[in-house]
């Protein structure tokens, strides 16, 4: 596995009283769907901004696709990454949804004809094709997030960072967008980093990194990490319902495995039930 992003001993503070990262070491594997979780203030968004070169580390190294970030290559690094922030208001530039999706593409010198195709394709994938002539600032929070995601997906960057990018969508909308991102991730050789609170999204990812007070506390496959209940709870994080249920049933002497996905727990229970 190639590491496409690496943070080595990174220190960053917003001011003297609030150190955000305290010698953080973490890596992202190329082509993987990595989720980053942690309570508010654990340093998740700071990591995203450092990777984009929007913040400058006080100490330590940041490597992106083999380049050690410095003032000269920060624009080259940024061109490899598409980011969707938690509050898309901060990133709208166009006066219409169409212009806004076009903006990123123009910067990548995409020919006009291809650009129109890409805008239509991604606007319809995120369910916003009927809003191309609307003003982005007048959309609802969830619709804004859809537009911001379309803009980034259309650019086909090597790396996509989603910083709580679906927080304003209703649960069904969130499922739609999550499966769209999964689909695009699988079809293309893209690296996805998703900063999220959605434990079910974490359960579906390739790898999870748990941040706490600006340090990596756990990392690995979701099916391993999400079972470390006492550690997760000590960090104010939740465990998946499937795990809670299978563990409680096991404690009652029912022969189920401790699974994190609901579907697997239910399947096992049904097999047990039919055998009886």
């Amino acid at each position, binding site marked *: 596995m190639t590491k496409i992003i690496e943070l080595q001993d990174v220190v960053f503070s917003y*001011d003297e009283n609030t150190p955000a990262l305290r010698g953080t070491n973490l890596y992202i594997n190329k082509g993987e769907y990595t989720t980053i979780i*942690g*309570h*508010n*203030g654990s340093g998740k968004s700071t990591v995203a901004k450092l990777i984009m070169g929007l913040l400058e580390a006080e100490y330590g190294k940041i490597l992106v696709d083999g380049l050690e970030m410095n003032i000269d290559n920060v624009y080259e690094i940024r061109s490899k990454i598409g980011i969707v922030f*938690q509050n898309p208001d901060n990133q709208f530039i166009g006066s219409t949804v169409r212009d806004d999706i076009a903006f990123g593409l123009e910067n990548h010198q995409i020919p006009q004809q291809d650009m129109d195709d890409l805008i239509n394709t991604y606007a319809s994938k995120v369910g916003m094709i009927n809003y191309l002539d609307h003003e982005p600032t007048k959309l*609802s*929070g*969830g*619709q804004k997030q859809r537009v911001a995601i379309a803009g980034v997906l259309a650019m086909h960057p090597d790396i996509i960072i989603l910083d*709580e990018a679906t*927080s*304003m969508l*209703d*649960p*069904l*909308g969130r*499922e739609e967008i999550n499966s769209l991102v999964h689909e695009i991730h699988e079809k293309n050789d893209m690296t996805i980093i998703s900063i999220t*609170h959605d*434990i079910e999204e974490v359960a579906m990812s390739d790898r999870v990194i748990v941040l706490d007070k600006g340090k990596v506390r756990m990392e690995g496959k979701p099916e391993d990490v999400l079972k470390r209940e006492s550690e997760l709870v000590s960090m*104010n*994080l*939740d465990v*998946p*319902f*499937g795990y*809670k*249920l299978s563990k*409680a*049933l096991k404690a*009652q*002497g*029912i022969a189920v495995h401790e699974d994190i996905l*609901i*579907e697997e*727990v*239910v399947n096992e*229970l*049904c097999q*047990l*039930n039919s055998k*009886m």
Partner: protein
Amino acid sequence: MSVKFKNVGHIYSPDSPFEYVALHDVNLELPLHKMVAIVGNTGSGKSTLVQHLNALLKPTSGEVHINDRIIVADEKPRNLKSLRKVVGLVFQFPEYQLFEETILRDIAFGPKNFGISEEEAEARARMAIKQVGLDESYLMRSPFDLSGGQKRRVAIAGILAMDPEIIVLDEPTAGLDPQGAKQMMQLFADLKNKHNKTIYIVTHDMEHVLNYCDEVVVMKDGRMIHQSNVEDFFAEGELLNDLHIAPPAIIKVKQMLKERGFKLSKANDFDTLVKDIVKEVRK
């Protein structure tokens, strides 16, 4: 004392090309001293509905009754301040509305605006900041140095300091981490249980509906299509599907197991579910 909607309609920008009917003939009675969830998809009229509760929006037809106040279409409501003392409305992302130099001044702004003395307003601010789970040391800090979740708490403290009887919250936990969201919901539950407040909450989070709310009102395309207690709401499988509501994990598991022949009791708590499954598997 009650909250009633009688044939309430609301049309945005009437008689213009942007005319949009947000509420159609809504008839509804909301109980007091309960936590009521208002659910529905984006654009269903939830936010429009709750903004009628403190006359931020007026009905374009019909009447809204809040205690002994009646707000009717085509009549300028008088003495709105007294209504807004009774009903506190917390918008989505209320942290965007913080503006004062210190948290103390921000929280005290509302009560002072209602003619409460400086001293009393500050005393209320001290109480409100504790109610939202922050300590008094925050009061002299700038609200802009806080994290998103902390700002949200401060914004809610600003409403609590006005001591309203009815607190209306439009998606108060959006964007918070699960633990922060739980603490926030616990705060509202305490306000209801210990301080006898009435809480109306617009939410997409069905876990919160299940765990904290007493009643559910469902909006769809500007109409009120369902009102019941929480248990009955989650038993309406068809309604949930129709609304594209992703049910809480426990309801999902129960539905899946029932479809495959498990007999489960009606209660939606974890221990009952575990007991029922054990009984079924051992049968």
